[in-house]
């Protein structure tokens, strides 16, 4: 089982950045007025941020990283690890991490790599960062996470278009001997790889003019081409209901913790109905379960740090906290983490 602890790693700061452009569910004409209100109430998305064409996830994460480096007073020369977690990279090749290493002025002695994960990506990436750094060879690392999903949603697909929002984030990690352990429980079920998929553009289905751009009517209100995100809502919904709560319970058991000692449960913002079901199953107090979905939608891999910045800024900057993080979705891939934060640097949401 991929269930383990990592010592000596401290989260120094978290920043998040979103596009200025905001769209409202009430302006989405493929839903009737009644459907719009029902969508806002049940799925939980009222507004979301949308990147203009040409604005990439790395642009959003870059601004967040710049603010972190400045705010923490880091010397960029000291950063020896950069990991970029996203499913909306700049190019098919090369990796985006290198582009960010150069743009941020990090030294050539910095190792940089991409990880391709979505909703589970923040938790997964944090475990890789932590493991890379916990030996003490690398003392400072930047963890850049986010997605621009709106470029790949079809306006004529009511199952995806009103759901997703764009955001990029940055988390600064330091090697600090004696820092409390972070613990992780990471899982995968690749048999569900088609549940959330952009079918064309990779090597399996290389893009062609004839096959990739043709719109297909899938169901009433769902029309898209093969560069658009296809979401099997029911499969993802049932997967999350089945897997997330047991994964969190197993992590708490491994860590020897009761649910009550956790100050906040910050989970992926999939949709409000799913999140509330998970919260109720685990009997988590609503006051301990923050949301960002209402104003930002489902922001894929950015959802956990974005929720921390927009809903818990005063808490994480002002006091010591025990957080439980959980991400779940595309892959299918899911995982949770328990960790401590101690008055971290967390600037206000950046809008670009």
């Amino acid at each position, binding site marked *: 089982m991929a269930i383990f602890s990592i010592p000596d790693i401290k989260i120094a700061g978290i920043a998040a950045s979103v596009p200025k452009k905001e769209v409202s569910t009430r302006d989405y004409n493929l839903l009737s007025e009644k459907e719009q209100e029902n*969508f806002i109430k049940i799925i939980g998305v009222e507004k979301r941020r949308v990147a203009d064409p040409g604005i990439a996830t790395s642009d959003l994460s870059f601004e967040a990283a710049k603010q972190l480096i400045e705010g923490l007073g880091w010397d960029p020369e000291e950063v020896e690890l950069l990991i970029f977690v996203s499913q909306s990279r700049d190019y098919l090749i090369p990796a985006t991490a290198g582009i960010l290493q150069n743009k941020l002025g990090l030294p050539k002695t910095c190792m940089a790599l991409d990880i391709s994960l979505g909703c589970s990506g923040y938790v997964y990436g944090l475990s890789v960062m932590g493991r890379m750094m916990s030996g003490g060879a690398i003392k400072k690392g930047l963890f850049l996470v986010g997605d621009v999903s709106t470029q790949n949603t079809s306006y004529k697909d009511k*199952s995806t278009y009103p759901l997703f929002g764009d955001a990029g984030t940055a988390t600064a990690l330091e090697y600090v001997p004696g820092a409390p352990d972070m613990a992780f429980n990471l899982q995968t079920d690749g048999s569900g790889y088609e549940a959330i998929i952009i079918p064309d553009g990779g090597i399996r289905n290389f893009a062609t003019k004839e096959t990739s751009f043709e719109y297909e009517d899938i169901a009433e209100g769902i029309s898209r081409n093969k560069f658009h995100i296809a979401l099997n*809502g*029911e499969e993802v919904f*049932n997967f999350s209901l089945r897997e997330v709560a047991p994964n969190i319970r197993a992590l708490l058991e491994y860590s020897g913790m009761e649910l009550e000692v956790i100050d906040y449960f910050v989970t992926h913002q999939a949709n409000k*109905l799913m999140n509330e*079901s998970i919260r*109720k199953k685990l009997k988590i107090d609503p006051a301990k379960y923050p949301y960002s979905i209402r104003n930002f939608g489902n922001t894929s891999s950015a959802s956990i740090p974005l929720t921390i910045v927009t809903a818990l800024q005063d808490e994480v900057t002002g006091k010591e906290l025990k957080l439980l993080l959980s991400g779940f979705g595309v892959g299918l891939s899911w995982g949770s983490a328990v960790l401590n934060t101690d008055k971290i640097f967390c600037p206000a949401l950046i809008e670009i």
Partner: protein
Amino acid sequence: MVAIEEFISRVEGEFEDMEPGNLSTESVLRDHFTWDSINALIFIAHVNVEYDVVISADDLINAQTLRELYNLVSTKASAA
């Protein structure tokens, strides 16, 4: 597993447009309100939170009446 009367009363409690006492064992949900994908997900989430079982959209289509849904959920709950 709770009795079927309690099962039905909890379903009525889950959907806001539903007046208590409107549903019976022979009621078919789609006859009582708009049966769209969101309402199907609400029902799937409801039985998962209340009875810790996972049912699919196909299950919902195959089980027509509330009695059939109750039997399905009971069977799954006792198998878990």
